C-alpha cells in the first residue's frame, strides 16, 4: 500500500439543501512514497476537495482514506498527528500569515508539533535558506514583504514541519513567470533533498510538465487517470474534450506527427524536444 490510498472516496457538498453538489465520486487512488505528483483538472473538477481529504480537513461522505496505512477518522485524536504527516499549502497561502515576524510565522507549525526550541530554530533557518529567503528578512514583518516573498514565507511555514507528504494547491497562482519558476524550482529542490512525497495542484500544464513525474487527472468529480506524463499527454483528444490543454510543445509535436514525421515518444518538455529534433536531424544527415 502506498503512502496515500483512497477507497471509493465520495464527497457531497451541502447534503440536504437545495445547493447539494457531488464534488467527488468514488475516487480510488494509490500514491507511492517519494512520488512527485501533479494534479490537474478544470475548475470545479474536485481537485481542491480531494486534497483536503488527505489530511482530514474534510471527512468523506462515503469511502475511506488511508495515510501511511492508517485509516483517517478511525481515531479522531490522531487527526492532529496526521496533519503533521501531511502538510497542506492552500491557494494564496500568503493570506494566512499572521505573526509579527517572518521567523515566528514559519516557526508556528513546528512549535505546534511540540519540537524543542533548538530544533525549531534550526528548521526555520534551514527552510528559509531552502526557499531562498535571506536571513536578514527573519525579523521583518511578513506584511512588509513583496507578493512572491510572502508566498515563499507561507510555503516555508509548512515545509518547516517536514511532513512525509507535502501538498500544494496552486502554488504559482497569481505570480509572474519569474516568481513561478522560482516556486516550482524550490518545490523540485525540496523533493530532491527530502525525498518525500510531493503533490502539486495546478491549472498550468506547462508547470506540471516541467516539474512532476506522475500526473493525476480529475474530471467531473471523478478520477480520469493517474499515470506518467508521457501516457497522460498521449491522450491529447480526451484532455481537449475535458477542456484541458496539453503543453504547447506536445501540441506542436502532435501536429508534426499528423504531417508524417514519426517520433517514438510523447514529448512534453522543451529540453526533450530539442534532443529528439537534434537526433532526427543527425539520422537524416547520416542517411543522406
Amino acid at each position, binding site marked *: 500500500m502506498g503512502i496515500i490510498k483512497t477507497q471509493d472516496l465520495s464527497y457531497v457538498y*451541502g447534503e440536504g*439543501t437545495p445547493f447539494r453538489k457531488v464534488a467527488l465520486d468514488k475516487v480510488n487512488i494509490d500514491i507511492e512514497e517519494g512520488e512527485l505528483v501533479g494534479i490537474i483538472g478544470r475548475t470545479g473538477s474536485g481537485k481542491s476537495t480531494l486534497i483536503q481529504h488527505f489530511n482530514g480537513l474534510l471527512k468523506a461522505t462515503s469511502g475511506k482514506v488511508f495515510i501511511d496505512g492508517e485509516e483517517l477518522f478511525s481515531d479522531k485524536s490522531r487527526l492532529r498527528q496526521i496533519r*503533521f504527516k501531511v502538510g497542506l499549502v492552500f491557494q494564496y497561502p500568503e493570506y*494566512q500569515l499572521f505573526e509579527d515576524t517572518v521567523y515566528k510565522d514559519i516557526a*508556528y507549525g513546528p512549535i505546534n508539533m511540540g519540537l524543542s526550541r533548538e530544533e525549531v530554530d534550526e528548521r526555520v533557518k534551514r527552510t528559509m535558506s531552502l526557499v531562498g529567503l535571506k536571513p536578514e528578512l527573519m525579523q521583518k514583518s511578513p506584511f512588509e514583504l513583496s507578493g512572491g516573498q510572502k508566498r515563499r514565507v507561507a510555503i516555508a511555514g509548512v515545509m518547516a514541519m517536514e511532513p512525509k507528504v507535502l501538498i500544494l494547491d496552486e502554488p504559482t497562482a497569481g505570480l509572474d513567470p519569474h516568481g513561478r519558476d522560482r516556486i516550482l524550482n524550490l518545490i523540485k529542490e525540496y523533493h530532491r533533498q527530502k525525498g518525500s512525497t510531493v503533490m502539486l495542484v495546478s491549472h498550468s500544464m506547462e508547470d506540471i510538465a516541467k516539474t512532476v513525474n506522475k500526473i493525476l487527472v480529475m474530471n467531473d468529480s471523478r478520477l480520469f487517470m493517474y499515470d506518467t506524463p508521457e501516457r497522460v499527454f498521449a491522450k491529447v483528444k480526451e484532455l481537449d474534450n475535458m477542456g484541458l490543454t496539453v503543453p504547447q510543445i506536445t501540441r506542436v509535436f502532435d501536429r508534426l506527427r499528423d504531417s508524417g514525421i514519426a517520433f517514438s515518444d510523447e514529448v512534453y518538455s522543451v529540453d526533450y524536444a530539442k534532443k529528439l529534433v537534434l537526433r532526427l536531424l543527425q539520422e537524416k544527415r547520416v542517411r543522406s
Partner: protein
Amino acid sequence: MIKDITIGQYFPGSSLVHRLDPRMKLGLTVMYIVMLFIAKGFLGLGVGIVFLTAAFLSSGIQLSLMTKSVKPIVPVILFTGVLNLFFVSTGEVLVSWGFIRITEDGLRTMIFMAVRIIFLICGTSLLTYTTSPIALTDAIERVLSPLRIIRFPAHEIAMIMTIALRFIPILIEETDKITSAQKARGADLESGSVLQRAKALVPILIPLFVSAFRRAEDLALAMECRCYHGGDGRTRMKQLKVGFIDWLALAVTSLFLAGVILLNIFLPL
C-alpha cells in the same frame, strides 16, 4: 462547519411568498410581529401560528431550514424560560421545594414566552429565506426614504446594509479557509482552557481582519471607478411594483391581525 449558518441566507424560488413585493413583505412581517406581541393568550398566539404556517407552507421552504434557524437561540429560550419559571410567583403553587416555588402562572408564562420567541424567529427567517438581500435592502431604503427630509441618510444606510449582507458569505468562506490553513499547520482549536482557546483564535482573526480591510479598500476603489457618488439621481434597474397579490396578502394579514385583536377583547385566554 461555519457554512451551516443560515442568517441572511436566501433560497431562490418562485412561490407566492417569493413573488411578493419586498416592501409589502417587510410590512407584513412587522404586522406579524405585532400580532405575536399583542396576543394576550394562547388563542391569540395560535392565530399568529396559523398565519405563519400558512405562509410557510406556501413558500416551499424546507422544514429542516426552519428548525436550523431556531437552533442558535435555544439557549436564550432556555434562559428566559428558567427565569419565568422561578420568578413568577402568582397563581396556584405546583411544586414547592425549599425556597423554590413553581406556580401555574410561571409555567404558563414560560411556555407562552418560549412559543412567542420561536415563532418570532421563524417568521423573520421566512422573510430572509424568501427575499434576496438586495431586494430587502431596496425595500428598507424605500421605506426609510421619506426620512430624507430630516436629512436621514436612507440610501447610505441601505448601501451599507447591502454590502454587509453581501459580504457575510464571503467572510464566512474566508474564515473557513483560514481555519483550514491554520489547522493544517497544527492549530489546535478544540482543546485547552478558555484562555488557550482564545489565544488559538489569533492566527485566524488577524488574517481575517487583514483580508476584510483589503476587500473594503478594493470595493471602495471599484465603486469609485464606476462613478458611485451616493444616492442622488440614482435610478433602479428593477422597479418595485405593488400588485394584486400584494394587496391580497395585505388583506389576509389584516384579517388575522384583526382576529388577534378581537380575541384579546372577547376571549383573552
